[in-house]
């Protein structure tokens, strides 16, 4: 059903006759298989019939089911020492058909089913990995094959993680655009480094990525991995505070975060009014348990100025992708008669982010046409830098980036416009009238909007 070119000419009578003959033959074969199924024939003749059937119709799961019934009987009857040969023969047959029909769910599943019955996997290891390599050379995005490989490596359990990393190296070098390989790399890296990914590794990955994005600046595979990698080094930060509700009873205020997090409580972030500690409760707004936006309600209202300090206590929280470091920055919010001020003290280690921003700027200085993906990534880095309290996180540059994106990548203008209106609000310290649907974006402008609307 996919990628079948439309005929430019109607089929000739010969073609029709040939196709009819082929279908006729197939029909006869299918009829024979169903008849033998109905007769519950589990003989070798029936087995041979299914061999023919799965060759011509590799998508018909019923034929594979029937074949497995016969195989189960064969396994019982075959002496132990001859079983490996029987299984190998089945794998040989499947290998041939898979090369013809590389996207058949039933074929790949049948291969899994056979392997689960193989005792000595070390013998098979090399051959399975070779098959995958062969198939991925023909189509490096075949997810059936990638998923099979992932399954097999886990199942066999003998391949080293370093070898898997090298495998993705070779696949990526052959084609930067192969996101399947980049994706697999994220999974391998996470297995190698179960805790924090060391700076050294991140640095060498960034070198590899720089080479890739200077070669193919529009390739989303590269930027997607770039985003994943740097996200590993990005702590959870506070992006905005809204005190409006504090003037009403019951008093409370709303805090926005850079990540979609859960489980904040008094042990995660300390709150004080002026220098007086405030006890109170945290609850997620809009969505739960994960939310970008949280509400803090003090247990008793303290009189005095609206001046709050938020000090992260715990070093780790959970965001929607797992454990994540909490920032060490300190936040202050102060509201006087006609001015509100949200300020951040301290600075996160922004080395990677600043140097990547420089790299991307370098790319954008020479790249005139294929810019949109790099500009988008630049805007994201600038945003992160601004939350990190780095002076490189320049709001005007974020605005300029989204303005350029609206011009050069107009297909995605609706998304860019929503982002742009957020940064215009931050710059002007007041929100525009267009509604913001994204919670992640809303979390950045809590000080300037009325959440009750």
């Amino acid at each position, binding site marked *: *059903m996919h990628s079948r070119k*439309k005929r430019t000419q109607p089929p000739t009578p010969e073609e029709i006759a040939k196709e009819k003959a082929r279908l006729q033959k197939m029909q006869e074969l299918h009829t024979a298989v169903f008849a033998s199924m109905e007769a519950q024939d589990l003989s070798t003749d029936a087995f041979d019939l299914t061999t023919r059937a799965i060759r011509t119709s590799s998508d*018909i799961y019923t034929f594979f089911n029937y074949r497995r019934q016969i195989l189960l009987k064969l396994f019982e009857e075959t002496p132990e020492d001859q079983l490996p040969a029987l299984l190998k023969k089945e794998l040989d047959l499947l290998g041939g058909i898979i090369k013809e029909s590389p996207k058949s769910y039933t074929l790949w599943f049948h291969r899994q089913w056979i392997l689960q019955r193989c005792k000595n996997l070390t013998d098979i290891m090399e051959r399975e990995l070779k098959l995958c390599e062969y198939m991925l050379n023909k189509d490096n995005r075949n997810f059936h094959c990638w*998923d099979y490989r992932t399954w097999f490596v886990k199942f066999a359990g003998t391949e080293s993680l370093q070898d898997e990393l090298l495998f993705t190296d070779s696949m990526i070098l052959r084609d930067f655009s192969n996101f399947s390989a980049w994706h697999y790399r994220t999974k391998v890296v996470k297995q190698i480094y179960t805790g924090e990914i060391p700076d050294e590794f991140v640095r060498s990955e960034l070198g590899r990525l720089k080479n890739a994005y200077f070669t193919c600046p529009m390739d989303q595979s590269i930027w997607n991995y770039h985003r994943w990698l740097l996200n590993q080094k990005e702590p959870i930060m506070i992006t905005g505070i809204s005190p409006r509700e504090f003037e009403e009873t019951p008093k409370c205020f709303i805090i926005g975060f850079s990540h979609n997090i859960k489980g904040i409580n008094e042990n995660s972030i300390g709150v004080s009014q002026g220098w007086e500690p405030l006890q109170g409760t945290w609850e997620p707004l809009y969505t739960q348990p*994960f939310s970008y936006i949280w509400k803090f309600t003090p247990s008793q209202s303290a009189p005095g100025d609206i001046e709050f300090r938020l000090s992260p206590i715990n070093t780790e929280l959970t965001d929607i992708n797992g454990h994540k470091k909490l920032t060490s920055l300190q936040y202050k919010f102060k509201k006087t008669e006609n001015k509100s001020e949200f300020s951040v003290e301290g600075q996160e280690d922004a080395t990677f982010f600043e140097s990547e921003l420089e790299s991307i700027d370098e790319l954008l200085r020479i790249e005139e046409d294929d810019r949109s993906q790099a500009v988008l990534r630049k805007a994201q880095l600038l945003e992160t830098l601004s939350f990190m309290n780095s002076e490189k996180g320049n709001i005007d540059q974020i605005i300029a980036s989204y303005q350029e994106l609206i011009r050069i990548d107009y297909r995605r203008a609706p998304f860019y416009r929503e982002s742009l209106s957020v940064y215009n609000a931050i710059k002007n310290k007041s929100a525009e009238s267009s509604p913001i649907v994204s919670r992640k974006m809303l979390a950045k402008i809590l000080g300037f909007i009325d959440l009750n609307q």
Partner: protein
Amino acid sequence: MAFDKAKQISYLLSADTREEEDIGSYSFEHLRMGGAYWTIGGLSLLKSLNEDRKEEIVNWILQCQHENGGFGGNLKHDPHITNTHYAVLVLALYNSLHLIDPDRIASYIASLQNPDGSFKGDEWGETDLRFIYCGFSSLKLLNRLHKIDVQLSVDYILRCKNFEGAFGAVPDAESHAAYTFCAVGALAVVDRLDLIDADELGYWMMLRQTESGGFNGRPEKLPDVCYSWWILSTFFMINRQHWVNYEALSEFINRAQDLEGKGGIADRAGNETDVFHTFFGIAGLSLMGYHDLEKIDPIYALPEPILKNILG
């Protein structure tokens, strides 16, 4: 290029009688249950489904049911959860769900839930996210969700989620738009959309819209009409559809029509048309509210009036 409603209606009406359908392709006999759903569902969205063949088709579906309650893809074909789901959908389209015993089907589906929460496609054990969606949707339509451990499957779905907020076929698999639909659809059926990050997922899906206007299913792949359904419906489920360029997407679908020949919609312009892409193209247009089509529900892929009848 304009959308040719009349042409698509006649294409779908003659879908299973056209001889040339098989010329130059392969046999679709095992996909007949799916074919019935795509054809009848398409006609229903085009507001052109009549009862002429209702009795014949409903009887045929009932004959595809097996002892264990599951349905095969055609007569004589083994039962499978995808075909069971298609059978339920077609019976729903024909207002005929009362003709089947919901408990029998529910016990078949419940028997396919694995201890880790995933679902098998059938007793032989193939497993991926498609089957959870089929299971959840069917059971909800039959009002039998209580027959399975919903939380267990919800946990499994989340194990298939990647950093991008999108989902792969199985845990650790690459994010793929069709599996993402299955994951988000299943979570929507059991009202657990709170467990996903709409903004991250919306961002990933927003990047799927290509220069041609059509969506691809993964980064750097070719666009394809069927993702007009998988992705756009997911956008609707998470309420971020305003990030989609409707005009460009509908033009991409319209260009994939075969207007000179037999009709239908292909995966993309210049390719052979089929009922699968015809249905998903029309479904995408329906979500966008074009051409006075019947509104389709983004979670269940059934026309809204039909769904309202069933779920109330």
